[in-house]
């Protein structure tokens, strides 16, 4: 793409890699927290074997 759009989006200012990186960091943290650390009984039971296998502190 040779021409940029007019709007000064976040992407224009800090770069697409950084935006993608930050988005990946946020979404990834939420997923890992939900599987590995969230203190919910339902999540714990469902992810039980996964938590143990990955060495997350569990119980």
């Amino acid at each position, binding site marked *: 793409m040779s021409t940029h759009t007019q709007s000064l989006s976040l992407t224009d200012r800090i770069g697409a890699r950084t935006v*993608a*990186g930050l988005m990946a960091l946020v*979404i990834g943290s939420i997923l890992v927290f939900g599987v*590995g650390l969230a*203190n919910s009984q339902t999540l714990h039971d469902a992810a*039980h074997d996964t938590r143990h*296998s990955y*060495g997350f502190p569990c*119980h």
Partner: protein
Amino acid sequence: MIVRLLLAALAAGLIAGMAMTPAQYLKTIPLIMQAEAYEHGEVPHSHGETENAVAAPAAEATGHGHDHGAEDSMLGFGRFWDTVLANLVAGAGFALMLAAVALLTGIGFPEGRDGVTRGLLLGAAAWFCVQLAPSMSLPPAVPGFPYADLGDRQGWWVIDVVASAIGVWCIAMRPEWLVKALGVVLIVAPHIWGSPVPEDLSSEVPAYIASAYAAASLATTLFFWLLLGGLLGSFLSRVPEEQTA
């Protein structure tokens, strides 16, 4: 480009997460099952709750029951599919975080074999930070093991993973010797500070299961992280740089 980067990471994570389920059923989950048999024997749980699987409905309990009947599983299909789902979510989550580290620290993936190699190195570094480093003070534990307070252990675990990651970055990515030395300090410090240790170390679970389990956990997760890193390197190298959205 952003969406393609995220999708590339997601694809790598889902494949690696999918591959993790058979690996776990081969190595770790049989040991978890064995340990649970001892746990349910009649050992009082370290949390002090009555853990009679037959009596109270697990949904009511505030503690940590381990009732894995099909009826109270998350999807309703039973323990196996819960684990499949959890592994997919964990794979996606770890993949996104690994991709985030690569993107934010400026690690690029050249096309072809070099990209894969770099991904493998990144995966190995992540395995060190997320698995090996915490396990040196907080070994991967089977059910029925003596436990320190969960919140304390989770706090220490998160701090150790983050400190190890920053430490590895300092050592691998920065040329200054002082920063490299600081990286070593960051990796070692949480272990000197010490992880939460249970007061009573006695357990009904046989030592053989415990040691086999710790090794199995580290081995299966090494497989996971290398696969994830290699796939991530390969997939991210195919996302063209100057492309919007």
